[in-house]
C-alpha cells in the first residue's frame, strides 16, 4: 500500500493535477478565515480536508466552485486554477464553473420535487439532453452512479424529500454527478447520516474516484483514512500539513497534526 501511494506521488506530473491553489486568503469582512493556503488536488483521487470546527476547511472547499460568491462579505484572494485556468478570472462565469465542479452538501438537500426532477434539473438547465429519452438515460445513469437506482427506480416520481436521510444524500450525489462534473466537492456528506448510510456513501465515494476528482471535508478522521488518498489538515485557517493519507495518519510531520489525529486538540 505504502509503495503504491509513494508511486502515485512520485508519478504525479503537471497533467495529473486538477486543482492548484496558490496563496489563497479568504476574509469574512475583516476576519481572515483562510491564511495563505497552497494545495494541489490530483485528478481521479479522493482528497480529504480534516481539521477542527471553524478551521476553514469548508470555506476553502466552497472557494473551489465559488459558492462563497453568494456571501456578500466574503472576499477571496490568491489563485485557484482548475486545469490551469484561473477560476477567479473576471471572464469566468461561476455558473459555468459550478457545472464543472459539482457539490454535495452537509445536510441532504433534495429539491422538494420528484426524484426524477431532482436529478434531471441540472442536465435540463445545462441543455445536456435533447429529448425525453436522453434525459431519462442521463437520470438513470446518474442514479446508478449514486448507487440509489435500485431503491428508487419504481418510484421516480415520488418526492425526493420522502426518502430516508442516507437515500437523500445519495440522491444529492446523483444530482451532482448528473451534470457530469469533473470535480466533486463534498462538504461533510455523512455528518447527518447513520453508520450504515455512511458506509454506503463512502463506498460510493470510492467508486466515484474512477471518474472524478473528489474533495471531501470531514470531521471524522476514520472516514478520511478510509476514503481518501491524500489528506490536508487545516488548523485556524492555516493548512498545516498536506500529504498522503497514510503518512498523515501514521507519521505526521507537524506536532499539531499529531495532536489532532490523536485527539488532543480539536
Amino acid at each position: 500500500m505504502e509503495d503504491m501511494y509513494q508511486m502515485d506521488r512520485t508519478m504525479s506530473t503537471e497533467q495529473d493535477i486538477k486543482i492548484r491553489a496558490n496563496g489563497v486568503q479568504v476574509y469574512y469582512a475583516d476576519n481572515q478565515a483562510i491564511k495563505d493556503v497552497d494545495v494541489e488536488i490530483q485528478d481521479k483521487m479522493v482528497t480529504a480536508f480534516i481539521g477542527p470546527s471553524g478551521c476553514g476547511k469548508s470555506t476553502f472547499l466552497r472557494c473551489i466552485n465559488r459558492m462563497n460568491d453568494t456571501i456578500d462579505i466574503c472576499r477571496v484572494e490568491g489563485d485557484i486554477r482548475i486545469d490551469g485556468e484561473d477560476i477567479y478570472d473576471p471572464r469566468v462565469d461561476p455558473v459555468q464553473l459550478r457545472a464543472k465542479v459539482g457539490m454535495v452538501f452537509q445536510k441532504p438537500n433534495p429539491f422538494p420535487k420528484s426524484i426524477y426532477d431532482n436529478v434531471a434539473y441540472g442536465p435540463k438547465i445545462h441543455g445536456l439532453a435533447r429529448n425525453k429519452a436522453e434525459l431519462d438515460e442521463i437520470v438513470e445513469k446518474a442514479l446508478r452512479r449514486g448507487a440509489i437506482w435500485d431503491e428508487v427506480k419504481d418510484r421516480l416520481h415520488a418526492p425526493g424529500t420522502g426518502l430516508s436521510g442516507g437515500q437523500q444524500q445519495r440522491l444529492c450525489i446523483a444530482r451532482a454527478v448528473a451534470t457530469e462534473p469533473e470535480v466533486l466537492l463534498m462538504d461533510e456528506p455523512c455528518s447527518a447520516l447513520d453508520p450504515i448510510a455512511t458506509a454506503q456513501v463512502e463506498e460510493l465515494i470510492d467508486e466515484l474516484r474512477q471518474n472524478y476528482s473528489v474533495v471531501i471535508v470531514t470531521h471524522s478522521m476514520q472516514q478520511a483514512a478510509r476514503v481518501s488518498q491524500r489528506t490536508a489538515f487545516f488548523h485556524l485557517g492555516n493548512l498545516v500539513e498536506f500529504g498522503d493519507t497514510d503518512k498523515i495518519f501514521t507519521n505526521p510531520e507537524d506536532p499539531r497534526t499529531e495532536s489532532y489525529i490523536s485527539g488532543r486538540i480539536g
Partner: protein
Amino acid sequence: MTDATHGTPLRNKGKSILEVDARTKKRNAAEARFKGYGIAAIGISLFFLVSLLIAIISNGIPAFTQTFVNVEVELLEEKLDKNGNRDIADIKKVSTFGYKPLIENAMVKAAEGIETELSDKDLSKILSASAAAILRDYVIANPDQIGETVEFRLLTSSRVDGYMKGRVVREDLARDKNLDAAHLDLIDVMVERGAVERVFNWDFITGSDASESRPEQAGIGVSMLGSFFMMLVVLVLALPIGVAASIYLEEFAPQNRFTDLIEVNISNLAAVPSIVFGILGLAVFIQFAHLPQSAPIVGGLTLTLMTLPTIVISTRASLKAVPPSIRDAALGVGASKMQAIFHHVLPLAMPGILTGTIIGLAQALGETAPLLLIGMVGYIATNYPEGVTSGFLDPNSAMPAQIYEWAKRADPAFYERAWGGIIVLLVFLLTMNLIAIILRRRFERRW
C-alpha cells in the same frame, strides 16, 4: 414535570416522585393559570366575534328582502298618448308626474272592498316614489301596451317595508307625514289577500344607490363592481411590482446604506395611515396626472400604493423563510441565481406570498378613508358600466364607501342597507380568500 427534580439530585434524594413538591405545584399552577388566560382570551374574542356576526346578520338580513305590491295598472291612452299615434317622442314627453293618476287608480282598484278612512289620493303613499318611473320605463319600452291593463310588481315605500320587517310600528307613525296607521291596516288586509308580499331582493345585490328619499330602491351592485375593478387594478399592479421588488431586495440588492434606507421606509410605509395615501392619490393621480376623478382606476392605483408595502414585507419574509440549503442545492448544480430563485425559491415562497397578497387585498377592499379623498364616496345611481373600460374609467363608488354613505343617512331604512352591505362585503372577502386558498393548495400540490 421531571425538571423539578432534575437539577438538584442531592437535595431531593430520598423524596418520592409520587408526591409533588411545593415548587412543582407552583409551576404547575402558573402553567394552569397561563392556560386559563389563553382560554379566556380566546373565549372573549369568540364572544365578540359571535356577537358581531349575530349583529351583522340580524341587522343585515332584512336588507335582502323587500316588500312589493302586485297591482294591475290600466295604461290609459288619454293620459299617455293623447294623439293615439304611438309616437315614441310624444310618449316620452309625458313625465313621471303624468303617471301619478294611473297609479292612484290602480291603488284604488287594489284596495277595492277594503274599508279604509284614507282618501283615494293617499292610498298611493304605500308605494315607493320609484313606481311612476318604473311605469314610464315600461311604457316607453312597450308602447304597444298602452290602453291595456298590465300587472306590475311595484316597490312599497320604505316605511311599509319597515312595517313588514318589524322596524316600523304604529306608534312611530303618530308624527309621520307620509303614512298613517290606516295605511298599515290596509297593508294587513292586502297581505292576507296576497297583493303585498315580501320577497328576496335581487335588486339590492345588483342595483345602484338611490336618492335619500327612496331607500327601498338602493342596491350595492354598482359599488360592488367598483370594488371589483379596484381589486383587479390592485392585484395586477401590486402583486408583480411587490414580488419583483422583494426578490430584488432580498436576493440581488447589495447590503448598503441605500438599501437599508429603502427597507426602513417600506416598513414605515406599511404603517402610514391610509388617508395619507388618499391625499397622495389625489395629488398625484388626479391633480398631476389628470386621471378621471372618482374612477376605480384611480382608487385602484391609490390602494396599490397602500397594499405594496404589505406585499413586499410578507414576500420578503417568505423568501427569507426558504431554507438556504435549497439555494445552495440549485447553485451547486450550476443554476444561475435567477434560475435558483425562479425554479426553487419562489415556488417554495409562493404560499407565503399569496397569504401576504390576500391580506393586502383584504385591507384594500375594506379601505374607505383614501376613497373619500379621491371622490369615490359619491351618489352613484348609474347602472352597470357598459363595458370593461368604462368600468375602470367611469365614476364609481366602492362597497365600504357605499356602506359609509348609507350609514350616514337619516332614514333607518338606509341603516338596514348598510348592515346588508357589510354582509355582501364579507361574502366578497370570503370568496377572495377562498380563491387564494385554492390557489395555494395548487402550488403546494405541485411538488
